[in-house]
């Protein structure tokens, strides 16, 4: 297919939503970094990464996704390898080994691993018949859980948790029955309970325990105040930021929790709290609507693609972005235990924005090359 034809068939609404999310990210990143000299470099870096991501995304659209399909397992393997080599070559920052340090910037392979898992799973699940049986889930489970396990070892529980919904959504789209999915969900929940008692780090347990307690806290009690200064500090400050934002917020750059540095990691793990504080519920709703538009756009795209690999990639990317954005929002309002998950394309992080934009671009490319769906051709 000619380049111009491809470009003409690209879903530009989805592209616009993606660009809008990137710009929203830059807007709030500017707000979070403007008063703090430690973070000022972040904005410039992020601008570069957004430009780079959009540029690479554009080229990604032009590449026929069948090439990606052919290299799917190689891509997945590279993703796993990059995670596996972290203990050897990775840098420790804030107690976690998640990054490769390169001159001037760092690369977080777990962000790319999400995309590689989507590609790997799509390549694996594209054969319809395999997925009908429960046993057919074993290989996809391996494809998703191996990188998830490596991410968990960094440790990065938040990113690891994203792999689960991606696997389930793609499996469901590939034809695995709802019953099987429900059983898998049940097993996952059980595994989480076991992990809580056996496998989790102390600080992770503490985060879950303070989350469970915070619903009935009296913040004036001395013991509670001590927890709020310790283990619960970050989610509590984020909740204060969100709650105090009200309907319309304090205004861009005016949020006190942000401006006066009460909100830690506000450019990464808590940027949605800044959105809430500075633009209120309306701003939050707008941002979530953009995600909604993106996710539904990707899913609509998937529905219109007959070719299974392309369709599953779209579902996988939609599940990844939807799940991660919702998790981030839920963490910021402490609806779930706190964990560090960036908001796709909005949070600071070159790897995150690049991987997400490439994921969307891949979907756009797939969409541009789709065959027309004719009524009654049996497409499910």
């Amino acid at each position, binding site marked *: 297919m000619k380049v111009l034809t491809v470009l003409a068939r690209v879903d530009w609404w989805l592209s616009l939503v993606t660009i809008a999310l990137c710009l929203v990210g830059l807007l709030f990143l500017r707000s979070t970094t403007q008063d703090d000299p430690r973070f000022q470099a972040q904005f410039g870096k992020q601008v570069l990464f957004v430009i780079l991501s959009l540029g690479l995304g554009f080229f990604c659209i032009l590449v026929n996704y069948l090439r990606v399909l052919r290299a799917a397992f190689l891509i997945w393997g590279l993703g796993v390898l990059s995670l596996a080599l972290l203990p*050897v070559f990775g*840098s*420790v920052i804030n*107690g976690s080994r998640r990054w490769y*340090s390169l001159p001037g910037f760092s690369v977080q392979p777990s962000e790319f691993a999400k995309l590689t898992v989507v590609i790997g799973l799509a390549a694996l699940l594209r054969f319809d018949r395999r997925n009908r049986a429960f046993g057919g889930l074993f290989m996809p489970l391996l494809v998703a859980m191996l990188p998830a396990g490596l991410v968990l070892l960094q440790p990065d529980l938040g990113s690891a948790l994203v792999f689960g919904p991606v696997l389930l*959504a793609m499996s*469901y*789209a590939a034809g695995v029955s709802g019953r099987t999915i429900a059983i898998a969900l049940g097993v996952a929940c059980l595994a989480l309970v076991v992990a809580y008692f056996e496998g989790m*780090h*102390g600080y992770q347990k503490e985060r879950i325990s303070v989350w469970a307690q915070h619903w009935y806290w009296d*913040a004036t009690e*001395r013991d509670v105040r*001590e927890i709020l200064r310790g283990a619960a500090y970050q989610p509590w*400050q984020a*909740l*204060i*930021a*969100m*709650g*105090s*934002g*009200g*309907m319309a917020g304090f205004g861009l750059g005016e949020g*006190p*929790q942000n*401006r*006066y*540095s*009460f909100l830690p990691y506000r450019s990464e793990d808590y940027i949605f709290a800044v959105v*809430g504080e500075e633009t*209120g*519920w309306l701003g*939050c*709703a707008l941002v*979530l609507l953009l*995600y*909604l538009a993106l*996710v*539904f756009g990707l*899913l609509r795209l998937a*529905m219109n693609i007959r070719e299974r690999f392309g369709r599953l990639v779209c*579902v996988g990317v*939609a*599940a990844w972005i*939807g*799940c991660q954005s*919702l998790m981030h*929002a*839920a963490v910021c*309002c402490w*609806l779930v235990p706190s964990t560090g998950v960036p908001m796709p394309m909005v949070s600071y992080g070159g790897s995150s924005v690049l991987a997400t934009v490439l994921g969307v671009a891949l979907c756009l490319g797939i969409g541009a090359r789709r065959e027309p769906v004719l009524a009654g051709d049996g497409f499910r």
Partner: protein
Amino acid sequence: MRIGAIFGLALVIVQSYLLFVMTAQHESWLVRSYQNRWSFRDVPSIRGALLDRFDRPLSHDEPRFELSCIYERFRLWHPVAAAIHGASLWSSLRGDLRNYTYAAGPLGPEVAARDFLSLPVTALAEGVLPKEVRKALLQSAYTVLVACSERTKANVRGDLRSALQNPGMLQLGDVPGVRAVEDMEEQFAGILSRFRALDETLSEVLPPSVVGAPAEMETVKKHSLIAQLDLLRTLSIEQRRTKHLDKQGIERPGELIERTARLLFANVPFTIAASVRVAASDQPGLLLEPSVLRVAAANLPKSLAQILGSTSQLDRGPPQGDKAWQRFEDYIDGRVDNAMADDLADLVPDSLTPLQDHSLALRDAALRSYEHLLRSSERRGSSGIEASLDAELIGKPGMRLIEHDAQSREQLLFGSLRVQKGNDVALTIDLDLQNLLDAEVQASLLHWQAEATAKGRDAARVDVACAVIDAQTGDVLALASSPTELDKQPRIPAALSWRGNGAIGSLLKPLFLVEQFAATATDLPHKDLGTFLPCNRLWHRVAGQQLECDGVHGVSGTRPEYALAMSCNVFFFQVAEGLEEAGLRRALWRFGMLPPEAIADDGRYQARPAELPESLCAAPRFSGRQLVQQRGIGYGIESNPLSLARAYAALATGVLPTIGLRRGEVRAGYSLLIEDTFLATVREGLRQCVQTGTAKQLMQLKTLAVCGKTGTAEIGSKGDNNAWFAGFLPTRSASGTQLCFCAVVYSVPDKTHGADAAGQLIDELFLQMAKDPELHSRYLREAGR
């Protein structure tokens, strides 16, 4: 589509919860946001100064700083602390349990640094040690390496990372690579020497406050930064916590002590504080807060310092007893109401928050905060003049409502309650005269203590005191007493009280002579002077006691001037017999020493100057069951030098002044209600006393034509005397003052008379005044000369 529906459902849940938090709960979160960043900051008040009569400060406030330490920060970020804690932790992991300390020694900081730098890097590799222990060791290593290698934090982080990847046989000191271990130890020695220099500098600072400190902090023997940090180190290692009472009054553990700011040094002068602040990055965890110190004049004599009294912070002298607590609470309430009544709206402006309830809550918080400020750092006069003039001297502490960032750095000022400095109060005291008098009193004390010791008597019984006032105005110019303490317990100043039986002796004779004249003029009970019998030493035997005089004054003893000059007891036995006890009491009332009996008080009775608290003074009184004749020569009547000086001031001017310590105050004067001719007779007797009588050896006083009277009162059967001397200059000086004085030396040996001890003290005082051009010009140079 189902996937989309699940996503949509999840999104609706999140969005709905957000709606609930951001709208329904908005106000409560907004209040929490305010609580996060709004706070009241205290501004210490400045207390008014006490000045002498020439506006020289006797006691004033100086800005100071309080140095506190948040030990957790200190141990994490100070290289010396990091080395000590790192080395201690590492040794405990090896089962060695070495307790490295800040103090120099075999386990001092140098040894700690050396041992810590020799820690094998393999021990820091992941999985070797428990995570928390590894984290603590890595933090210590990071702090020490950054400080000792002079490399950037990022470089050191990279060095550590590389070393951890290939630890081999590396030791921590080898990690930076670019510096030898010896160089790093040298660098550490430099840091340590700066740390010790700070300790040395701070050791000059006044002792710290112990408020809120754990009991151990009060027992730190050596007052030094190092000793206090060593104590905090122990508390940190033991994970000790503060304690507080819960609502049920049960003691509960609170915050870790190492996380709270502990006061190390109060009253740090600006110069030291400035050097600490400039090098703040060298001393992480050390905090400076402004405070105020009450400073006495450098040359302030002890006895005046005792009268001026002291201040104390409200929380450092908690009142004892229910009533005292109630008064304390009433005081606090009054201060809060007074300070905040009009200014609350300035402090918490109406426009500050759209939440009316929170605005009110903030004002409540402002009141509580101000109350806390008063309770925790407000200073009140606790004794002496500082206490009695507290209402004027006390300032009003200020408070500011500010917005601050997460590091507590002030960002915005919303409103403030202005600090109000207390009023300065100028006293009547002349610091030069006071210093001179104090020196003389001290010299006299030493002399008579030595005499007492030489005669095998108890030197601790000797007390010397003197009061000098202006007879014209009643201004107290100098008040000196010595000693000011006994067995390390403060003593009530002898100038304002009395010792032993307090007998005044013959000092009262001129007062009774005045009463004799007054009784004669008003036909009150008296004996006519014409009927007085001559003195042949012995008088009657009354109630088994033989009354006698010190000498044989013959017929001359019947002349009032002579009787006064020679202090003839027989003359005054007859005066007392004529006046009877009521007359003697009336005499003392006339001179303001006793409250009136059976007559209306015209206000002349003055137990003490208004500026002096009751606790410092003892008002004159009749005591015991003495014969009226004995009272006539000064027994059974107790008084202090200041009251007697006042009485003699009345003799000098004919008007009994109200004595006071506030400069420029117009105070009432009371006529003695007798004719001037009678007063002239009394003054002549007093003049003759110095010229030819019992005080004739006092040459300087003779030169100045001082009118004076000696008093020698025996103290029980112990053979000691109270030696008194009181008098006045005959005329005003060029500056308008007329000096009047009274001195006493308690417990001088038998046969020592008033003139020998107290008289000598006054004589020497005037001699020294004459030598001092300033004092001579102020008090001795007569008008027109």
